[in-house]
Structures are given as structure tokens and as C-alpha cells.
């Protein structure tokens, strides 16, 4: 099948059975690839009520038609599962070179099923596919494992591995690849750990068939030319995502001390400029990327290296913890990567614990003696390790994520647990940024930014405005942006370089032989959005409007400092945002897709 590896690989960890099936043409037509394939298999194959960390859950790893092709940023791999962190739908997008390698091994999707009794790793070299003993790797850091497996098999082999955090089923454990790229969010690493899969080793040498070779070459070249001609390329490539750090601080969107404020006094020591000057040694791009956001850093003080920190980590492990030192943030980043826990969720959990400590809700008796004050670097390093190993009372508590941890601790700490649907909010403070707030409220994995990144849009159109046009913009972004996760490519060329998105249509057409306009593609995006919503409905009794509420702080506690001092979103505006959002989505007043909407999207059979 043009544009595809052509095969779905199933690996049953319980009985060791490995089987292949052809990628169904209708699946490719209706769901295209990536996260489309992910939710299709999750919805269809994982029984209702499955324990996310039980053998019935599946980890679904998918490429898309642009993965591994001559397409800017064709290096994205989608990992879908039932989230142990949220109990709902999760997909995590991982950059690097894994997705291309999968494609060249002829694989569109790998489905990990069941659970092994002993630690194993999955070895794939074209047709040779085996489960191998990983007992000597179990317990090791993800970076060490990658070094060891690269050394054993060779540089051409691509590795994805979990760290101790995944083994110990920290609910936001991540999967690491390419010395610094992660499938970060929702606890995909915990699911891999629950199946006792330490790593996947991958090598593929097959060519990928395309529908029209000359048109493919022409359309691919046109996209690269657009990227290279883009005005912002040099600046973007110099700083990557950290380019927004200072801007976020200026507009009060930089999470500071557990999102109690949006501006940080130590900004000059943690922004992109400080990072570039002090620690960056190499730019590092994912497969096919002409505008590498990856910054590889050397921390002289610790004599260590890490890819990053990128903006989200600077926010959550830096200002949000009261830490104004780029080397400390980078070292915390490295520790979290190697131990295999998501920097965003971990940073948020630590910030919440620090606030609890400063308010006297947690004491040294609860923290294993740690002085958990904002800005305490050593406490941060220690806590990252304690979380990954679920060590002591505090490590075990914070491994649950901030929602569950705050429910256990109580005493009003739920009010400053910064999460939606159980997922910790990424690095945009939304006291007064209603589009971004709505984006977090309605994102289909919990409070994550990448579906509809609207913080700059808020500033353009009026941050406090609550109008139907704003809601329509969020819905448009939610239908459109995740299509890059369907294609298996990166959205940042469109977002950051501003290239014309219409350039993608002839490329997809030439590769797959299926002509699609953005109108067609957005329809697929809308269909997928509604299917992920129905997954939440199916898996959580009583799911509805309350699940879409933001962290209480954003409508009750205005920051005391910074440009957003004294500002919050009124609760009635939060509700108005939801009213408008549900109406425009064709959902009922409780946030459930109506029968008519499901029929229009041709989803009734699938969700029945």
C-alpha cells in the first residue's frame, strides 16, 4: 500500500506469540495513520473497564504516511493506550528516528498485548522478530540501556526504552528514545513497564512504496524550500521551543511556584538566551527536520549531557519550582529522562508538594525529612529519584500524579493541584488566557498544550474575551493540529515557520495516491476527536461536564505578582466557554457527543 509499511505487528507478551496482518486499506482510508490508528485499535480491541496496568490493556505504536519520508519533520511516532494516570484516552507523540525505522521495517503499527512474566525486549530486524531476555537490563536507566543496545547491535538500530520509573509503574512514566526524545505523557511508560517490556530495538532496510515518485519528490522539495526560505528559521533553530520563555514571562504565562503566578524573577537565568549561551553544544533534529528544535546540552557543573531542556521542562522544572538556574533545570531534566518519568508531570507534582510543605499540609514526617521549599535544588534531585523508585512515603505518593496525590492528602490541596482529567497542566499559566484555558479544559488527554496551542492567539484577540469566535478557533485547532500526529510528522514547521499548510496536500496525495484537501483532513480530525471523547465516556461512569473544569486556581486565586497580578477567569466565564464549546461541537449540555453528531461522523457502529 503506497505510503505505508503495509503491516500491523502484534506481539502477545503473555504467550510470546508474534503475528502479522496486512494493514487494512479501509483503516488507512478512514483513519490515515498515527493517532488515528491508535484510537481505532484502542476503542475496538481494549475491553471496556480494562485496568490500564493489567494485561488486557494494549500499547499501540503507530507511524503515519509521512513518517520516514522526504517530508519536513516526518519523525513522529504515536503511542496510544488507556492511561494509568487519567483512566481515559492517552496518546504520546515521540520524535526522533524510531518512526522512520518502523516504516522501513515495513511496520505501520506495533501492538503490544498481554504481559510477560519476565523482563523482555522486543527485537525487530526486518522479518526477524523476537522477544529476548532483558533481565540484565531491568533496573537500568533508559539512557544506559540505549547505550548498551546501540553498542550491541549497531548505530543503525533505533531504541525505545523505559527507565526505573516505567518498571515501577509511576503513573506518568515515559518512554525514551534517541538520547533525549520521549513519548512523554499519560503514563505510556508505565504501561510498557506493566507488560515487562524494557525496550524495543528496531532496524529496517526496506524501501517505502509511493504512488507517484516524481510528484512526491517535487512536493517534498517544495516543502523543504518553504521551510528554508522562512524568515524565522534561523532564530527558531537557534533556540527551539525555549524561544517563547521570555515572552511567556512578559505576558504572565510562565508557570511560577506551582502556577501561583505567571512571571518569574529569575527569568534571565533560565530563558533561551541563557541556555544557548551557557549549556547548548549541538542542535539535534528528529527525522527529516529542517528546523531542529532539539538542543543538546552539556552541564559543566555536573559533567553530564542532556537533550534539552525544552520550554515545557524549563517551565515545570524551573520557574514552577522557584529554580532560576539553567544548569539545575537541565540536570533535573537528565535525571527524569534517564529514570523514565515525564518532566511536565513530575515538575507539577513536585511543585504541588512544595506548596503543601510551605503551607504546612505536608511536614518533614511526610517528606522523608526533605525541606521541600521552592527553590531547593537538592530536594528536587532527590524527589525525582524517590518518585522513579517509589521510594518512601513521598515518592510513592507523588508517583500517583497530582490529582490522586491531592485526593489522598486532602486539606484543601486539591485546589492547587494543577491538572485537568488527572493530567498535570503543561507550561502555560492560564489565569487570564481564556482560549488557552479552554484548550487545556477540553484537550483529549488532559491538560496538554499541543492539540490547540492558543496562548499567542489569546494575546492577539484579547486574553479575557469569552466569545464564540474564540471557541471556534480552539475547535479548528483541535481538528487540524492533531492531524500531524495522524500523518506521523511534526506540526512545528507550520506553527513556527508559518509555512503554507496547503503544501502538505500534494505531498500526501503523491505518497498515498489519495487526494485530500484540508477540509477532508479536518473532517478526519473531527472524527478522531469525537472518538477519543467517546472513549472517555465509555471508560468513566459519570463522565461529563465536571471533567472539563480547569484547575480551581485559575478561577479562584489571582496571582499576587507579575503582569497578571489580580487577574483570574470568572467561574461563570469558564461555564460559558463550555456552553459555547459543546454547542459548536454538537455535544449535549453535559459534554457528550449527541447521537446526531455521531451519525454525521459515521461513528455510530464503532462506538456501539
Amino acid at each position, binding site marked *: 500500500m503506497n505510503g505505508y509499511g503495509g503491516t500491523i505487528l502484534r506481539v502477545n507478551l503473555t504467550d510470546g506469540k508474534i503475528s502479522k496482518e496486512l494493514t487494512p486499506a479501509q483503516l488507512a482510508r478512514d483513519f490515515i495513520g498515527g493517532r488515528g490508528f491508535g484510537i481505532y485499535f484502542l476503542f475496538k480491541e481494549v475491553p471496556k473497564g480494562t485496568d490500564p496496568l493489567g494485561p488486557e490493556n494494549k500499547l499501540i505504536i503507530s507511524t503515519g504516511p509521512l513518517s*520516514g*519520508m*522526504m517530508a*519536513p519533520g516526518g*519523525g513522529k511516532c504515536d503511542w496510544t493506550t488507556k492511561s494509568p494516570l487519567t483512566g481515559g484516552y492517552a496518546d504520546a507523540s515521540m520524535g526522533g*528516528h524510531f518512526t*522512520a525505522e518502523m516504516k*522501513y521495517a515495513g511496520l505501520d503499527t506495533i501492538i503490544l498485548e498481554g504481559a510477560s512474566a519476565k523482563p523482555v525486549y522486543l527485537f525487530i530486524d526486518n522479518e526477524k522478530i523476537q522477544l529476548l531476555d532483558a533481565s540484565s537490563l531491568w533496573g537500568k536507566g533508559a*539512557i544506559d540501556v*540505549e*547505550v548498551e543496545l546501540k553498542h550491541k547491535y549497531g*548505530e*543503525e538500530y533505533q531504541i525505545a526504552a523505559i527507565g526505573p520509573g516505567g518498571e515501577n509503574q509511576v503513573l506518568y512514566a515515559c518512554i525514551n528514545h*534517541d*538520547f533525549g526524545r520521549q513519548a512523554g505523557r499519560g503514563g505510556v511508560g508505565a504501561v510498557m513497564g506493566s507488560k515487562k517490556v524494557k525496550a524495543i530495538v528496531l532496524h529496517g*532496510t*526496506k*524501501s*517505502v512504496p*509511493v504512488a507517484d*515518485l516524481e510528484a*512526491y*519528490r517535487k512536493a*517534498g*522539495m517544495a516543502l*523543504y*524550500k518553504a*521551510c*528554508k526560505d522562512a524568515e524565522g*528559521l534561523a532564530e527558531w*533553530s537557534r533556540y527551539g521551543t525555549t524561544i517563547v520563555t521570555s515572552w511567556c514571562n512578559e505576558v504572565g504565562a510562565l508557570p511560577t511556584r506551582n502556577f501561583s503566578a505567571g512571571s518569574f524573577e529569575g527569568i534571565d537565568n533560565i530563558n533561551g538566551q541563557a541556555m544557548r549561551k551557557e549549556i547548548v*553544544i*549541538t*542542535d*539535534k*533534529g*528528529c*527525522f*527529516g*527536520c*529542517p*528546523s*531542529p528544535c*532539539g538542543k*543538546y546540552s*552539556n552541564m559543566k557543573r555536573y559533567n553530564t*549531557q542532556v537533550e534539552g531542556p525544552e520550554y515545557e521542562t524549563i517551565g515545570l522544572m524551573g520557574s514552577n519550582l522557584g529554580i532560576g538556574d539553567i544548569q539545575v533545570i537541565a540536570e533535573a531534566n537528565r535525571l527524569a529522562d534517564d529514570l523514565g518519568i515525564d518532566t511536565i508531570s513530575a515538575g507539577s507534582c513536585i511543585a504541588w508538594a512544595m506548596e503543601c510543605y510551605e503551607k504546612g499540609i505536608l511536614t518533614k514526617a511526610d517528606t522523608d525529612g526533605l525541606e521541600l521549599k521552592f527553590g531547593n535544588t537538592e530536594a528536587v534531585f532527590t524527589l525525582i529519584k524517590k518518585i522513579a523508585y517509589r521510594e518512601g512515603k513521598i515518592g510513592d505518593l507523588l508517583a500517583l500524579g497530582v490529582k490522586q496525590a491531592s485526593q489522598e492528602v486532602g486539606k484543601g490541596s486539591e485546589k492547587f493541584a494543577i491538572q485537568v482529567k488527572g493530567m498535570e497542566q503543561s507550561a502555560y499559566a492560564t489565569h487570564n488566557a481564556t482560549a488557552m484555558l479552554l484548550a487545556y479544559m477540553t484537550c483529549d488527554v488532559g491538560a496538554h498544550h499541543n492539540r490547540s496551542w492558543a496562548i499567542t492567539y489569546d494575546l492577539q484577540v484579547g486574553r479575557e474575551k469569552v466569545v464564540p469566535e474564540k471557541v471556534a478557533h480552539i475547535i479548528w485547532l483541535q481538528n487540524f493540529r492533531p492531524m500531524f500526529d495522524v500523518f506521523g510528522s511534526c506540526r512545528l514547521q507550520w506553527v513556527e515557520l508559518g509555512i503554507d499548510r496547503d503544501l502538505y496536500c500534494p505531498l500526501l496525495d503523491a505518497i498515498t495516491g489519495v487526494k485530500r484537501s484540508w477540509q477532508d483532513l479536518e473532517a478526519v480530525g473531527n472524527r478522531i476527536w469525537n472518538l477519543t471523547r467517546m472513549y472517555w465516556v465509555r471508560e468513566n461512569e459519570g463522565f461529563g461536564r465536571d471533567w472539563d473544569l480547569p484547575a480551581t486556581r485559575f478561577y479562584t486565586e489571582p496571582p499576587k505578582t507579575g503582569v497578571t497580578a489580580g487577574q483570574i477567569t470568572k467561574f461563570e466565564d469558564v461555564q460559558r466557554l463550555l456552553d459555547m464549546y459543546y454547542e459548536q461541537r454538537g455535544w449535549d449540555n453535559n459534554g457528550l457527543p449527541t447521537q446526531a453528531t455521531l451519525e454525521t461522523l459515521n461513528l455510530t457502529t464503532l462506538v456501539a
Partner: protein
Amino acid sequence: MRLYADSAKCSGCRACLVACSLNLFQESNPKKASLNLIPHFPNPGVFEMKVCTQCGDCAAVCPTEAIKLNDRGAYYVDFAECNLCEACVPECPEDVMFVRTELANAAWKCDLCGDCVSVCGTSALWIAN
């Protein structure tokens, strides 16, 4: 004319490798490219690029004279005349003379098409005298 690479500017994305395979073999397959990318991670954290300097050492030892000059002044492999003897491989000072029989039934090398330069977003590759 020859291809030049500045490893310090390379971000390891491999776009050059796909573009190369597409021109050389009319296939999308970075394993069939005539540049060599060697990442050195996690430490020291640098990428190393190897490219053909068009020195001609490969052509000089080829027993079937399969390595010829094209109109760009670059040595290329005439696939039909290559007998896979591999004599050229150890002669290449840059390790960019490729024989992988599981991938192709002839040796291959850079023919200076320039497509790698066209897709490189970090200006790590260029063609000059």
C-alpha cells in the same frame, strides 16, 4: 566541484539521506544513501558527517571501470558494469563507497546530484570547487 559538509552544523535529521536515495535509486530509503551520518551520543554529543570528495581513488581501482565521470565532473557507479568485487570500498578515505548486497546489486556512491543540499535546513552541506 564536490560536496562539502560542516559536521558542527549537522543536526542529524537524515533528510539528506532520504533525498539521496530518492535521486540515486528512485526509492525512499535512507539506508541506500551515499552520505554517512555518525551520531556520537550521549557523550560528547556531536554528529559526524562523511561525504564524497570526488578524489577518484575508487575509480582508479575498479577492475571493470564501472566508476565513471558524469557531466557534473563527479564519479558515479554505472550499475550495469559493477561486479560487486568491493575493491573500491577499502580505498575510500571517507567511508562513503557503499556495497550492501542485501540492499542493491551494485556498489553506489555520490554522483553530486545536489538534492542533499536542497533539503538541508541547517546549511551543513554545500557544493563548491
